[in-house]
């Protein structure tokens, strides 16, 4: 196995001990993200605090990348404004699509996703939670 493995400690930690992983049924706004291709299926729940993300939780099942990415997302966006989240989502997409550039991840908390940029096939796993959150904000 190459040293480039995506299964770095930080990612595995998020997968094994997902942050903010809990029932979304109490949240103000909920959106489901699913990828029938690999069976990833998660729900994101948000409580807003004015224009900001007050509380965010997620629930569901998926591969380690999908679950870890969702977990990292909840940590990254808590307290951020809607616009900040939308911008961050866009930055993350661009960063991911760059594949191997030197650009660091838009947030330090997301750095563990770096190795995945070589694998365009994992794009959807990484972005599933982010897409769902974006939908929530756009609907609001």
């Amino acid at each position, binding site marked *: *196995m*190459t040293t480039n*493995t995506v*299964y770095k400690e930080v990612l595995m930690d998020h997968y094994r001990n997902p942050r903010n992983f809990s029932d979304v049924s109490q949240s103000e706004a909920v959106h489901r993200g699913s990828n*029938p291709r*690999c*069976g990833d299926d998660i729900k994101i729940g948000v409580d807003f605090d004015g224009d900001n993300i007050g509380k965010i939780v997620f629930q569901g099942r998926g*591969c380690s990348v999908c679950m870890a990415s969702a977990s990292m997302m909840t940590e990254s966006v808590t307290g951020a404004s809607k616009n900040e989240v939308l911008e961050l989502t866009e930055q993350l997409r661009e960063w991911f699509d760059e594949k191997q550039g030197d650009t660091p991840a838009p947030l330090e908390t997301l750095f563990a996703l770096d190795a995945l940029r070589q*694998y365009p096939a994992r794009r959807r796993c990484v972005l599933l939670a982010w897409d769902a959150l974006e939908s929530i904000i756009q609907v609001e």
Partner: protein
Amino acid sequence: MSTNPYIKQTFNIQKQSQLIRKDFPLLNLYSGDNQLHYLDNAATSQKPQQVIDAISDCYQRVNAPVHRGLYALADESTTTYEKSRKKVAQFIGAPQSEQLIFTLSATESINMVAQGWLKHHLNAGDKVWVTGMEHHANLVPWQRVCKETGAELCFIELTEDGSLDLDNATELYSEKTRFIAMSHVSNVLGVINPVKEVTQRAAQAGIPVLIDATQSVGHIPVDVVELDCDFLAFSAHKMYGPTGIGALYGKADKLATMEPMLLGGGMVDEVGDYESSWASLPSKLEAGSPNLAGAIGFASAVDYIESIGLQTIESIVSELTEKALFALSNINGIKIYGPLDSERREGIISFNLDGIHPHDIAQIAGESNVAIRSGHHCCQPLMRRLGEVATVRASFAPYNIEEEINALLEVIETAQSIFMPR
């Protein structure tokens, strides 16, 4: 076949695969630590140099419009195209070359039958049967035709071990049944279905049967007369041939009563301003400029298979499968789908590991140059029946060698050490 370089009694199967492997330039690109363990053969096979050369040769020597020119090169292209048809037709035992239609893919072949034949033979309340293990290509077209006509889609369910539960498909041969579509070999379970048993009873009841032979042609013997099916669909790219070409075989009366799905040049006889009449078979079902290089590549893939011998292919793959099944079944926390009896399966093995998502296994495999597949394999209905969202799948070809099974086992060990540390 004493002149067959691949068969020497003194060779063991390992050596035969190694010899065959030499024909596949893509595999030979990688060596040493970078060696590519291509175990995604059920998705698409690699191509031998012989097929690649046949395609180049077509463009360098034969290329001209098919069926329409009065110069020598156009004669050559026409003759070569029709020879290719004959070759592929004979390979599946079609009584007449005209019964073999070149298509875009197995997918297109099946859609042609759904839209061009079954749609015109279905009424509300009729039944169309498929199985619980079909590839989307052999399911979604029937869903649509049933919806369009008000017919009912029925499923032959599976037994615990992934065989067809024919005993419990009590209405299968009933008066209401108008069509049965089933796969010869499942692209997930690897199981070889008892097609003959179905066609025999269906014939008594006057029910046409389509066989999706995408995973069987080129892998195990397929003879349409012996199988007695009404339609048979397959793709070249799964049997060492080019991408972008497939075939449809049909019984003469079925093809004769089929409405063409595609209309245009080559498939017409007289074209009025408002109405047109169709040409005879096989042209009627091949609208547009024929795919000359595709047909030639397809035929050369058949040549290649025949040069090795289908039996040799079968025995290499079945030995690999048996060994892999044995080794895999000793792994803790593994679940293997489909019958374990290697007599009843091809070289396709789907499995899952406790506590590890199939995607993660395939990813870890990819990082070690082991090309395996994870996902639903275009078989979501089967996944539901297995109670899984996805599986890992390894599938063998005659160019695979035993050490590639070990590479797969190592990948599993790595995955378990990452995800299930003791």
